[in-house]
């Protein structure tokens, strides 16, 4: 019986089997959670040492809880940005290096099936890391100040970010023959998205405020910031109503009714989809993308 496209994709089945075999995955998860636990513990110790206790005022406890939450959120975000390229940037180039790509392309599996299989099997590991961190994050609820809704929003954003970064990795792994090259270029791209876009964005904001007299009545968020997931994260973590853009006194332009992080997520999803479509085209040896999987033999 066929049970849906994702479960019947042989690449996902096979790679999950390989990944889950042995201790590497379990050790990876343990190390990941270890880092997050250490950060949470250090912040908790700082909370104790600032002479606060469980008898402190509700506001003080909530403030401490919020600090731990932000620290964990930022560290987890950084870890996702670090780990995802390592998981995805070698998926197709690795097949090429192992000389198994031709064997795969000579079968009936479509280029869409190969790219999605590779993406989902590598993303499943990231997803596993994100999901296993939920109990750790939930400890913040003991302090108050953070709602389950806030955390749901954060975890949705994590998954979208991982998907977008994963797509960049897949894209470069189809573009470059060597995994080392595709990994390096993926990290450079993320660095540009993260840091350079902020510098450019700050410069563009400063232009909006300077040189024009009187000041613009409705300054907007520079477009370059929409591609930066770090700004989206900042928007989620800013507690002021209206989030990050209101804090800076900026409007988010034509999609002004939506939160910045939602627009940011939408931009990332569109870019990721484009990169995946290009990857599917690039990997196809006869340059005809087939979206239909061949019929099952009887």
């Amino acid at each position, binding site marked *: 019986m066929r049970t849906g496209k994702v479960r019947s994709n042989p690449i996902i089945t096979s790679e999950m089997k390989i990944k889950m075999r042995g201790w590497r995955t379990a050790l990876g998860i343990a190390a990941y959670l270890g880092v997050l636990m250490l950060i949470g513990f250090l912040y908790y110790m700082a909370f104790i040492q600032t002479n606060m206790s469980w008898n402190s005022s509700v506001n003080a406890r909530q403030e401490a809880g919020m600090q731990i939450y932000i620290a964990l959120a930022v560290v987890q975000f950084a870890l996702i940005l670090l780990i995802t390229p390592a998981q995805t940037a070698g998926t197709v180039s690795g097949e090429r290096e192992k000389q198994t790509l031709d064997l795969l392309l*000579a079968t009936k599996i479509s280029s869409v099936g190969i790219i999605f299989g590779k993406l989902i099997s590598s993303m499943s590991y990231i997803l596993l890391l994100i999901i296993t961190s939920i109990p750790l994050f939930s400890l913040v609820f003991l302090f108050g100040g953070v709602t389950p809704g806030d955390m749901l929003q954060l975890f949705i954003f994590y998954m979208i970010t991982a998907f977008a970064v994963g797509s960049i990795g897949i894209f470069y792994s189809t573009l470059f023959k060597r995994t080392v090259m595709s990994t390096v270029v993926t990290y450079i791209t993320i660095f540009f998205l993260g840091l350079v876009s902020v510098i450019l964005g700050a410069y563009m904001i400063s232009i909006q405020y300077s040189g024009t007299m009187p000041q613009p009545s409705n300054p907007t968020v520079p477009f370059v910031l929409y591609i930066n997931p770090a700004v989206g994260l900042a928007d989620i973590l800013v507690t002021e109503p209206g989030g990050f853009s209101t804090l800076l006194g900026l409007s988010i332009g034509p999609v002004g009714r939506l939160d910045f992080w939602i627009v940011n997520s939408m931009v990332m999803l569109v870019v990721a989809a484009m990169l995946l479509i290009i990857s599917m085209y690039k990997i196809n040896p006869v340059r005809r993308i087939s979206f239909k999987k061949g019929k099952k033999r009887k």
Partner: protein
Amino acid sequence: MLRIVNLVKKYGNFTAVDNLNLELEKGDIYGFVGPNGAGKTTTMRIVATLLEATSGTVLVDGINASENPVRVREKIGYMPDFFGVYDNLKVDEYMDFYGSCYGLSKAERSKRTNELLELVDLRDKKHEYVDTLSRGMKQRLCLARSLIHNPELLILDEPASGMDPRARLEMKGILKTLKDMDKTILISSHILHELAELCTSIGIIERGRLVYSGRLQDIMRRITGKTILEITLLDKTDKAVNLLREQPLVEDIYGEDNTLEVSFNGGEQDMADLLRLLINHGIPVLSFTREEGSLEEVFMEVTRHADR
């Protein structure tokens, strides 16, 4: 089964395959011979839908490879000259994975895996990790993999490369079995005498052009322009040599004891006439055979031309 019409593949100004035409009937075993870089692998990759042709048509069982690659892949089993294996996959899992890639059901995958591992003599390695197998075993496994979906046409690019003599013999045995199974096979190899034994036809490719194509003996004659006859006599060797020297179609005679190698310029009727002549002159002929052409000789001749 396979029809290649005016196939051209260019990389910039370099023409890798130049107007190549080829036709294979069902059950044919066609050997591709040529020096390195002649265009054998490029042609095979185009047929396997792994490379786009610049122009020309490839039809597999009447299906156009560039228009309908997925349907062509169903009919083709491809074994490249260089290939890798997945770490951490066992032999049966490896076969199962490729079976799934061809859309076979679980029961069918299991049945085909058992049959093919039996064929390539790897049944006892079924639960071992692929990367622990020897090179020869990996080659046999790759051949089994290419057969998982029971293809009608097999494209084997140097299937015996890098194998020791024993492994080569085993591979040859498997190919003979496939021949008996009426598979159509397009094979390239540098182990020429094995190719000569196996193939129904040979194609010689040089600088992207198919310069000769047909039965090995015919190619031999077209290249060297002569046939070698091996004649074994009971006695009267001197009389036979003198008689043969008088014949205008006999070019040269080499002798060792009672066996003569005669370089002959005639056709099949002329050969029959020559045998009758020997017998009519009372020469006791024990055997009279046309020597199978040496593919090495043909290969050397062609590559000598190519080097010029």
